[in-house]
């Protein structure tokens, strides 16, 4: 295979894996922001919590990686409910600023708490044998872990797509994103819907956090460091849009991977440049409502 094509395939493959991580972690944020217009800067903290739960489950309790991912997401999903009920709920009608402050405060507290228990040193996670090494797809081989990410991401997208577009509850969520008051007045319990999507979104974030350990390593600063990325995906994709979040994750994942390959010193410059350009042209993101 020619050299250039080989590199292009690598970039698309790694970019896809990265995009899947971004999508899984950000989609919950997008839906909850679309529903309530709530600026949730603690989303990264839920992702980080998921990551640390996975570390504890695998390292201390010896549970295998995939089961740990499931348990950690479920746990974070459940834990997020009281936060929504008792803290977030008070500020639904407040200004952006107050929401930003409350959630940044939560993120700080989460970072401090996890630093206290786990220390500031990056954590890794033991992977099962089938996720290590490479997988051969006939014409060339790919790293197994990234292939796993892509397959998992694709599966989750299908499930979410079905749930969002075909089920009753998905229709209710879409209705509430479009017009919350109208949805409430035709008898949809928007509050309960929001608690549900919030828990689901936090669980997905925790899953993303668990998946990220192998990609970036896990430190307590994960909560703020990657938060900016999730917010960018949400803002570029458009609030409350599954399609938009996916498109934004793909664009950012692939262009960033390509950019880092071509200009390693540029860091995240490409991501920020894309964000600025997209938001200046389409302020509400790809599929957001103007």
């Amino acid at each position, binding site marked *: 295979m020619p050299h250039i094509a080989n590199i292009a395939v690598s970039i698309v493959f790694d970019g896809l894996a990265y995009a899947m991580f971004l999508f899984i972690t950000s989609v919950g944020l997008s839906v909850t922001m679309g529903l309530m217009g709530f600026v949730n800067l603690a989303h990264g903290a839920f992702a980080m919590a998921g990551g640390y739960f996975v570390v504890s489950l695998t390292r201390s309790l010896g549970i295998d990686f995939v089961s740990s991912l499931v348990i950690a997401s479920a746990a974070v999903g459940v834990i997020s409910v009281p936060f929504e009920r008792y803290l977030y709920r008070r500020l639904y009608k407040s200004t952006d600023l107050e929401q*930003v*402050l409350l959630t940044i405060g939560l993120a700080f507290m989460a970072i401090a708490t996890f630093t206290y228990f786990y220390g500031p040193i990056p954590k890794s996670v033991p992977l099962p044998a089938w996720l290590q090494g490479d997988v051969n797809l006939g014409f060339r081989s790919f790293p197994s872990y990234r292939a796993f990410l892509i397959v998992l991401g694709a599966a989750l997208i299908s499930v979410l797509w079905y749930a969002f577009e075909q089920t009753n509850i998905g229709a209710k969520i879409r209705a509430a994103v479009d017009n919350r008051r109208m949805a409430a007045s035709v008898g949809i319990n928007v509050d309960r819907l929001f608690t549900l999507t919030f828990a689901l979104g936090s669980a997905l974030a925790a899953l993303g956090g668990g998946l990220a350990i192998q990609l970036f390593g896990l430190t307590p600063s994960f909560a703020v460091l990657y938060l900016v990325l999730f917010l960018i995906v949400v803002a570029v994709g458009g609030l409350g849009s599954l399609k938009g979040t996916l498109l934004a994750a793909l664009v950012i994942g692939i262009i960033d991977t390509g950019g880092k390959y071509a200009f390693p010193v540029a860091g995240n410059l490409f991501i920020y440049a894309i964000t600025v350009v997209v938001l200046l042209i389409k302020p509400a993101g790809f599929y957001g409502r103007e």
Partner: protein
Amino acid sequence: MAANETTTRSPAAEAARARATEFLVRRHYFRLPEALPWLIAVACFFVFPDRMTFGSQVLIMIMFALSLDLILGCAGIVTLGHAAFFGLGAYTVALASMKLGWSEPISGIIAGGLAAGLVGAVVGWFILRYRGLTLLMLTIAFAATLQESGNLRSDITGGYDGLPGLSFNPLLGYFQYDLYGHTNYLYALAVLAVIFFFVRRIVYSPFGQALTGIRENIRRMHAVGSPVHARLVTVYAISAAIAGVAGGLFTQTNAFVTLTVFDFDASAKLMVMLILGGTGRLYGAFVGAFVYMVMEDKLSKLSPTFWQFGIGLLLIVAVLFARRGLAGLVEHAGRRVQKWVKR
């Protein structure tokens, strides 16, 4: 009309009108308690002569918080990227001194302010058409873009290792910088005083009133024909310039600057300071920056982890219970005392 008014106005309405007029006329007068922060600042110079390096950092953060108060407290622009302008000022001063040999301090910070203000005007023109999450993201992305660009050209900016060993000419060609930072402290205090009276003038001007209108009800301001976008861009540029001056002072007093000045954390920390002090009341920046810096200095030495936890908790408590910050609490207490004295 006039005749009609005189016939229908009751004495009570007359008195109310007089009170309102008096309030409007006197609103911007200096009140006695306003001298307090300045007296404390001067007193600190004599009481803690060995902590002046720290003191000048506090003054610089007050200035920086004041610049945020102008756009956040006054005009209601929520930004998490204000460190961009602080950094621009800091690097303008550093690079002017290093590459151009321009080491005169006062013209240095003016240049820093102008550079940051100019960039603020251009960036503001683009991003201030948006509000909410979009605006928040654009401010974050802008600061991050600057940081990454600086890292890309670390041959010029020194990257995260920074530009060490900057030196500046004696202040006004006469005052040498001493080891204890006494000159720096008085220098920062003087600049802060100038900036503060400038900001105060803006806040109480008709322009400041228009900004308050934009903060409270942007649709109505559009409806009454106020040039909303132009006003927001103007105040954003002014605020950026002040942040740039603060950044320039930061470089001069530390003789050192790294790309960490552009950190997201720096913008978030600034926001925390202002919220802690109270937004939209000028002296909130003083209280917030002072309390934050002193607590950070004391507590983060004990345990950085608990410090971060405490800041998070403070923010949540401030949002849920004390939305007007420490300055708001003090004002509230002051009013209670006044009432109690009158009774």
